[in-house]
């Protein structure tokens, strides 16, 4: 069982991250994943977030209470959500966008310049997919195959290849970082 929060600001495709991951886990990894998000004017502000509860068994309580994993793609999201992360949780940050404090307790921190890498690949719009690849590699909570299978229908057809490219780049970078950490 794991609780994941994807967060950032509006327009980054944060909700998409929850959808892709949830779809990948529940349709292709044979686990259960319940995704919720905030709606309404409060959700259109600068801090945007989607939540995923992942479980081998059926998810009963649909919301996250104290996340095991937080992905922060904006300063405000980091400031707002980091304090609630489990003491042994995983924190993933776009360190071009977020100035972070040193890790507290036993939190593991992972950094990637996802938006910058996306720009190098030709379109900053896939920054979220770079982040998603990275997240897949460092958390291992979902298989990369499942993630790629989940993409059609959730990213525009004409950008599918570009999105996969972004995902792969993030994933490779994640593997590299893991190796280094060891």
């Amino acid at each position, binding site marked *: 069982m794991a609780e994941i929060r994807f967060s950032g600001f509006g327009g980054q495709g944060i909700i998409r991250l929850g959808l892709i991951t949830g779809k990948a886990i529940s*349709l292709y990894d044979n686990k259960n994943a319940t995704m*919720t998000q*905030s709606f309404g004017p409060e959700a259109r502000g600068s801090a945007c977030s989607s939540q995923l509860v992942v479980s081998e068994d059926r998810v009963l*309580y649909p*919301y996250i209470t104290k996340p095991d994993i937080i992905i922060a793609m904006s300063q405000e999201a980091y400031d707002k959500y980091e304090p609630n992360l489990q003491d042994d949780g995983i924190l993933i940050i776009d360190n071009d966008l977020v100035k972070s404090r040193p890790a507290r307790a036993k939190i593991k921190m992972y950094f990637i310049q996802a938006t910058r890498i996306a720009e190098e690949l030709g379109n900053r719009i896939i920054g979220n997919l770079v982040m998603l690849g990275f997240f897949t590699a460092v958390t291992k909570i979902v298989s990369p195959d499942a993630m790629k299978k989940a993409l059609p229908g959730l990213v525009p057809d004409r950008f599918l290849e570009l999105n996969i490219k972004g995902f792969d780049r993030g994933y490779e970078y994640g593997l590299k970082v893991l190796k280094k950490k060891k």
Partner: protein
Amino acid sequence: MKTDPKGVLTGSHYMDGDFAIAEGGLAAGCRFFGGYPITPSTETAERFSERIPKVGGIFIQMEDELGAMASLIGAVWGGRKAMTVTSGPGFSLIMENLGLAAMMEIPVVVANVQRGGPSTGLPTLPGQQDMMQARWGSHGDYEIIALSPDSPQECFDLTIEAFNLSEIYRVPTLLMTDECIGHMHEKVIIPPAEEIEVVERKWYKGPKDKYMPYKPDKDGIPFMVKAGDGYRFHTTGLTHDYRGYPEINAEWQDQNVRHLVDKINNNADKIIKIEEDKTDNAEVVVISYGITSRVAIKAVQEARRNGVKVGNIRLITVWPFPEKRIRELADKIKAFVVPEINYGQIVLEVERCAAGKAPVIKVSHLGGGVHNPDDILRLIMEAAK
């Protein structure tokens, strides 16, 4: 009969409850959607507007829910299966012509993605505060059927079920879900069309001049026709005779009301679906529905770990209410615990059925979220003492 495969999006999907309601409707053969957008139900209307032109149906966004509900009744007399979706404030407007649908005995489905109320309340957050309004929110005496799904998957399954029940009993049927489930994404499996059973309208096939829209058949349910087929029938919201002609007197009023109420209550055993877990030998029984039933399971599991014999009941059908079963249990158990996202609605029904034989403890969350399972657990533990 098997459903028309055109509307069935067979496969595994990752989908929210609102979309699943639309897919359930399309799979059930719904080919007319008249509605008015309202948070948190709007995604259902959006899904219908996108999908229905591709399956031979029609979507119309009406000027308000008064008109939406009226348009559905017209569409049903036009021969279609029809539905709408709404939430709190819209549900109040739906009530006007829900009464007409009850009186005219119209098979039609209304989904309510409940939010916190009263009035505008909490547009983007869940509630279960319309459960009593669902039953008798329109004026006068009548019965409806109301189902309460606990997941996007059940939003799909029970929308089909709602259509089937509405056709069998010629009664408006409500799908009472909430914002949490409506906006929650989970896996939804849509089976192949040949595995989806749908109930055809109870078409009249006798001589044209002998048709009476309100004469009960042997099973108590009158036959239907559609407009334009030469029956020259009349129907009205007024109290009426078997021909549908107005009868403004106590005798026909008695017949009308008894018929509308009895056709549901006399078939309650056939209609009602509940899910029971370890209710035999239970000391405490938790009763809940919709999203709350999922949260309640967490509390039930924890209570069992603490050695309490606790049974769990999930109401899939909320109306008609499973009176018989609750009465049986009341004789045997220490107490009922009823969590719901309101200040106490279905708990009153449980109390009525328990009739003083077992205490009934309510666990209220007043909307805007779901219960903390610990709050339910605490009261289970107290009830077990």
